[in-house]
């Protein structure tokens, strides 16, 4: 009973105060036939044994820092995480606190989240950010909820770009089941080379929102200004799902006129952790703040005239609005949001731009070298950031199996989601990939091409 600090004597004293004979008597209200089941679980490990067991499991993986070279992205990216990030997240005062309901003794969390909101607004070019959503995909789904609420449920169609991440599209579909919204545009057989502006053909006056990705799932960077204007002309909102690293370099969706900008904050100093937890950022225009889901920190003063922060506009949330709340979100991704704030504070203006440019440079070097391989080639010609679709002209799983033998995790198999992209992989390159690694990839893929 390492974590239970009550001795047998204390227990008996306490039972005496309560007036029951034994611990078991505290549970008389529970139907006797189901009371005290024998659980078929392994017997308890001590800390020393558990540490060992978990090391064993972790070592049964091959990780992309010490075991494998990776060119896998598709929504999660292997970036360098400065040491300070985790040092700050390990402060017990941060990670063992609850949601800051009592602002007098929660200013650490509150100010940090206020800073996170500010950083996200600065990155996306939007007015306001909430305190976080679960991840990029759920943030995108919540954008639909916002839009649906904004039009008081009168517009029931959601237009989703086919170049939005397939898993994000899946989550939006799941979320929309209850409301029975029509999801359009989400077509794996769509023409992926067409101008993104063509999506406007799907938007009608029953449409509450159109959702685009930036850079798109294939890494391509488009200026969506015109498309957004056109969607606005139909009376609908536009949500842009953005990669935050790309935002250090490329025009903000805010400046293109987007109403909502969301995305996954994982690239900002959060480990991939086999997929989570990461953080979904959610930013919008000030006129929509009352419809926005999630917690919100605002600046104020305390009774000593000190600048301070509180959770504000809480009347939007489930604990007050109950079934009429836009979302049921309660626990969010506070600590991970803090992690991104620490990361952005460290990198700052110049550092984040530098990371983005390193990704850009290395991805373009890789693309250029790979496209020289006989029988392989880039799929698209548009400007791209740090991911690109490569035609490998044979089944991607075979190619990846070969790469794995050389200690390389190849790109994401695009044929899974897009029949027209059979034999194509999505390659991601970050600042973590050295030229040597890229050259190795090129070399092994050349073998594949020739063998």
């Amino acid at each position, binding site marked *: 009973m390492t*974590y239970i600090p009550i001795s047998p004597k204390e227990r008996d004293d*306490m039972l005496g*105060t309560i007036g029951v004979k034994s611990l078991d008597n*505290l*549970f008389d209200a*529970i139907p006797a036939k189901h009371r005290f*089941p024998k659980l078929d*679980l392994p*017997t308890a490990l001590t*800390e020393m044994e*558990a540490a060992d067991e*978990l090391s064993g499991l*972790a070592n049964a993986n091959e*990780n*992309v820092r010490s075991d494998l070279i990776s060119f*896998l992205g*598709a929504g999660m990216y292997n970036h360098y995480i400065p040491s300070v990030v985790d040092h700050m997240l390990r*402060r017990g*005062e941060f990670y*063992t*606190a609850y949601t*800051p309901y009592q602002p007098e*003794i*929660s200013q*650490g969390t509150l*100010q*940090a989240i*206020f*800073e996170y909101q500010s950083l996200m607004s*600065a990155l996306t070019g939007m007015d*306001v950010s909430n305190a976080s959503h679960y*991840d990029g995909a759920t943030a995108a789904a919540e954008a639909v*909820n916002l839009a649906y609420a904004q039009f008081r449920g009168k517009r029931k169609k959601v237009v989703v770009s086919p170049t939005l991440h397939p898993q994000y599209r899946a989550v939006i579909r799941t*979320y929309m*089941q*209850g409301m029975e919204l029509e999801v359009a545009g989400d077509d794996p057989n769509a023409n992926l080379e067409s101008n993104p502006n063509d999506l406007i053909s799907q938007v009608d006056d029953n449409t509450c929102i159109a959702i685009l990705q930036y850079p798109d799932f294939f890494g391509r960077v488009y200026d969506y200004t015109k498309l957004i204007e056109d969607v606005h002309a139909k009376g609908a909102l536009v949500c842009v799902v953005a990669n935050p690293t790309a935002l250090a370099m*490329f*025009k903000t969706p805010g400046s293109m006129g987007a109403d909502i900008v969301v995305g996954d904050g994982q690239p900002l100093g959060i480990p*991939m952790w*086999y*997929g*989570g*937890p990461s953080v979904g950022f959610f930013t919008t225009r000030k006129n929509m703040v009352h419809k926005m889901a999630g917690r919100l920190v*605002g*600046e104020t003063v305390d009774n000593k005239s000190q*600048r301070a922060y509180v959770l504000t506009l809480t009347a939007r*949330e489930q604990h007050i*609005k109950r*079934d009429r709340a836009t*979302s*049921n979100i*309660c*626990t969010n991704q506070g*600590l991970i949001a803090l992690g991104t704030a*620490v990361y952005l504070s*460290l990198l*700052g203006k110049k550092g984040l*731009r*530098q*990371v983005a440019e390193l990704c850009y440079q290395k991805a373009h070097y890789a693309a250029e070298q790979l496209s020289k391989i006989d029988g392989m080639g880039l799929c698209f010609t548009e400007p791209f950031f740090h991911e690109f679709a490569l035609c490998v002209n044979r089944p991607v799983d075979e190619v990846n199996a070969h790469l794995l033998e050389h200690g390389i995790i190849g790109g994401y198999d695009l044929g899974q989601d897009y029949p027209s992209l059979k034999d194509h992989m999505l390659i991601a390159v970050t600042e973590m990939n050295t030229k040597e690694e890229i050259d190795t990839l090129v070399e092994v893929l050349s073998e594949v091409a020739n063998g």
Partner: protein
Amino acid sequence: MANVSSTLNAKIVEPTIFDLSSPGRTGVTMPASDVPETALPPKELLRSDLPLPELAEVDVVRHYTRLSTFNYSVDTGFYPLGSCTMKYNPKINEDTCRLPGFLFTHPLQPVETVQGNLALMYQLQEWLKEISGFAGVTLQPAAGAHGEFTGVLIMRAYHKSRNDVKRTKMLIPDAAHGTNPASVGMMGMTVVTIPSDERGNVDLKALEAACDDTVVGMMLTNPNTLGLFDEHIEKVIELVHGCGGIMYGDGANLNALLGIVRPGDLGFDVMHFNLHKTFAVPHGGGGPGSGPVGVAAHLVDFLPEPLVGIIEDAEDDLPPLYGFVKPAKSIGRMKAFHGHFGGGLVRAFTYIAMHGPDGLKDISQYAVLNANYLQARLRDTYKVPFDRICMHEFVAEGRFEGSDVRALDIAKRLMDYNFHPPTNYFPLIVHEALMIEPTETENKDTLDAFVDALIKIAEEAKTQPDLLHNAPSTTRFGRMDEVKAARELVLCCWLPENYDENA
């Protein structure tokens, strides 16, 4: 939302990172590029400025270290926040979840390269099934509310799969947590509120009256938010099942039931776990959590995709090959990738592995012991409206005859005694509610000191009520102007106007 905050004349205890910024500083240096240079894309595609703050490493460390000291936390004291299970979070979990093999695996890696992760997830699914008595478990949901939404989607999909399409009403007790009705609201269903009886149980008559063939099901927290185990739980479930409804259990209060009773055995059909409550995943100042959902056999096919399964059986010396499987009638994906693996699942796995069946039962027994001990010592001073043996928490009233002191004042005054206050004003059915959940990880000395403080405060409420109205007075920050925050809506800050001129 003025660019200039109206708190301009306020004292600044700790500047923001934007206030601290100075041109040219940086907190980390990145290597130069090692590849031949490619031209940047056309200028029209690029942003011209990036208004992020600039700080050196020391500035960042001092800033966030100082901020952290403004927080109350489990690591610094007693945090009896009802419904939140603020138990101590063992430090070993912080180590295991940071093993490089977990930190640096990509969710889309070939399954052959991540058998450690998958074995852990598979085992955890099995363990949660065994603990709860359910037939299937998804680890995907990100938090309790996300689990609720998942569960309600499954309930809807089940009825729909049977062409039972007129069910649109969800029964929810008046004491329920806000996320329950909100989850239902997100589905376009209607909430029917069921009152509680005078012993804090579901009012059976009202329930019976509401049960008809338009009922999707019922969402019940048991023990409920009064901390009471429903004395007619089997009858309640019978009534719901009787009208074709599905019984949803809000597992937020599972800390009372480990090794005590399995919700599945009682007849619940769906339940979410809060790994960040029951299984000691730290709350992180608001998250991340982890909200797996367990379902009975008839609902297994509707679970979100993917689940972790065995895709090649074990053979001789070879372990099984774990991989992903898709339930036949899956509602789909709840989020990208596979749930809160690192932050949630690894910690909870470590915690369960270190407790085993007996240790889990200890958790609940001592959680309930501690709550009853507090209740027994406090009931003469604070009215406990539903006064019987409670489970892991109980609710008292924070008001006194003839005094204008409110629960909020008591909460704030507790801070002066170095305690985190209980949950206030929830559940809604208790006046001036103080919802107290001590958890099993607190010792008797702490509980006694907390009781002493509350008794002292009750006295102060009579003799020096202003001490309470003006509390807290010993903390670094005092009461907040919440109205100003909501009216002015300053939701972010920026670099100073002429920032770049100082470069």
